[in-house]
């Protein structure tokens, strides 16, 4: 613990600026830190956090000390191309998909069972996404009613449509285009998801 209020109180430096440099919180108001109901002094940062602050400061100071005076002047600026390590990683990454996948329109269908962010209501069979603007279509079944097909459409920010399909079982995306996706149900019924109207027929 590093109570600093009394140590710094005589400095003619605004407290906020002191904090901006030292990174140690102090209690509002004058006087030594007071304990809270649990006996923990207020106006201190725990010693283990302080150690991390100190370590980071040392690292920055060391880098500053090693810096050549004209380092910035000699820097070429923006990279003309991706750094070599990044280019090598991209090459090794292929098209980047770890799961089975196939193109549909300008997007890609990925065979994944991972649900949409924060949504456990759909058991996903596969999903289609495209960029510009981002759109994500998840096909599968209602997690609480596996015989009910379900499609969830999201943009990059939130859900934009949820379309249940009764009577045919789980759905999966099997083809289509940017305008309409082909859905095949568990009972082999073929349906079409119109992305402009967000309806299935």
């Amino acid at each position, binding site marked *: 613990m590093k109570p600093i209020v009394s140590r710094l109180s005589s*400095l003619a*430096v605004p407290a*906020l*600026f*002191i*904090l*901006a*440099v*030292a*990174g140690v*919180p*102090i*209690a*509002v108001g004058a006087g030594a830190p007071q304990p*809270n*109901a*649990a006996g*923990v002094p*207020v*106006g201190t*940062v725990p010693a*283990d*956090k302080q*150690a*991390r*602050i100190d370590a*980071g*400061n040392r*690292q*920055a*100071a060391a*880098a*500053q000390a090693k*810096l*050549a005076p004209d*380092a910035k002047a000699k820097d070429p*600026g*923006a*990279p003309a191309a*991706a*750094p070599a*390590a*990044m280019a*090598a*990683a*991209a090459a090794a*990454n292929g098209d*980047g*998909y*770890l*799961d089975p996948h196939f193109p549909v329109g300008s997007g890609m269908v990925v065979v*994944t069972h*991972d649900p949409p*962010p*924060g949504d456990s209501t759909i058991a996903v069979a596969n999903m289609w*996404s495209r*960029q510009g603007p*981002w759109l994500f279509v998840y096909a599968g079944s209602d997690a609480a009613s596996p015989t009910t097909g379900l499609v969830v459409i999201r943009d*990059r*920010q939130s859900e934009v449509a949820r379309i249940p399909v009764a009577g045919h079982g789980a759905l999966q995306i099997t083809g289509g285009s940017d305008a309409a996706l082909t859905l095949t149900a568990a009972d082999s019924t073929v349906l079409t998801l119109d992305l402009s109207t967000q309806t299935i027929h």
Partner: protein
Amino acid sequence: MRFGHSRRVAGAMLAFSLVAGLAGIQARAPSALGATYPGSTHSWYVTDPTNSTWAYNQGCSLGTALANGGKPQQAWVILDFFTQVQASSGTWGVEYDNHVFHSNTSVQAFVVQYAHGFWLCTGADTSAHLYLGLGTRNIWWGTTPSFATRGKAWASLVASANSALGSYAAQVTVEGAIDAELGWASPSYTLAWASSFSSNSTYFYADYGDAAGCPPFGACNGGYTQASLYTLAWGNSAALPFPEIYHRANSQEWASEALYGYNHAGLMYMTGSFTEYGAVGCTNPDTCSVESPAYAFRDFAADLGANSHTAGAVPAYASDIDWQ
């Protein structure tokens, strides 16, 4: 922060540095007296970590703003790389919702180029310092590898990124960060990740997640409690709270969380307030569905300041996330 103001800050920094012998150091920890809105930075949802030029340009843009006195001299920025993934080959990386895998090599190179741009474009303003949060989210696909293993891997990535900074480390520190949403992963998963990060890292992680449902409104969502949220956001030695303040209710939830800390374990000092005004696409703070960075900071400072026990926890930073 205006130009004249930043010059006074620099003067104050120098004065304190001389007194304390701490020349060249910067803050990356919470501070208590940030009641004046410090201005905000852009944080980013990174959907294409291969675009290193974009990263460089954004870092340069921020560096230029700091050099010109248009931003605080210490800045926090979070780069959100979405879900942490380990490929079957053992390679660690990240995936956005389109499930395209990018290895940690790409992520690190992206971060370094952001730092490069910042460092170069601050020019002669070598007092400017950036805390660059390398962010992920507590959405994990599958339960293997363990969450402790994942937390350790993220700590390793953060350490590796710092090592790769070279000269830029004089003005940039890479920290961890996690968008820990109570509605995404269970407390046991999230806390295992966070605890492991903390015990395997000398760097911080910023919790830029939510406290949805928590007091004063009821019980925290997702099986979390104020106690578990305290551990996640402050109790772990690496934890710094940089909470989402999208609405006034979020501000009240986190102020209540700060008071919980005061009463039970020790006040949690807020590092920053985090908003999504840009990501939502707003241009008018008076009509937007979410709070602007300035409004969020104002509300958070007011809610923390309303109780004398938490008044010292007002954050020093503000950042607003947008899409790459």
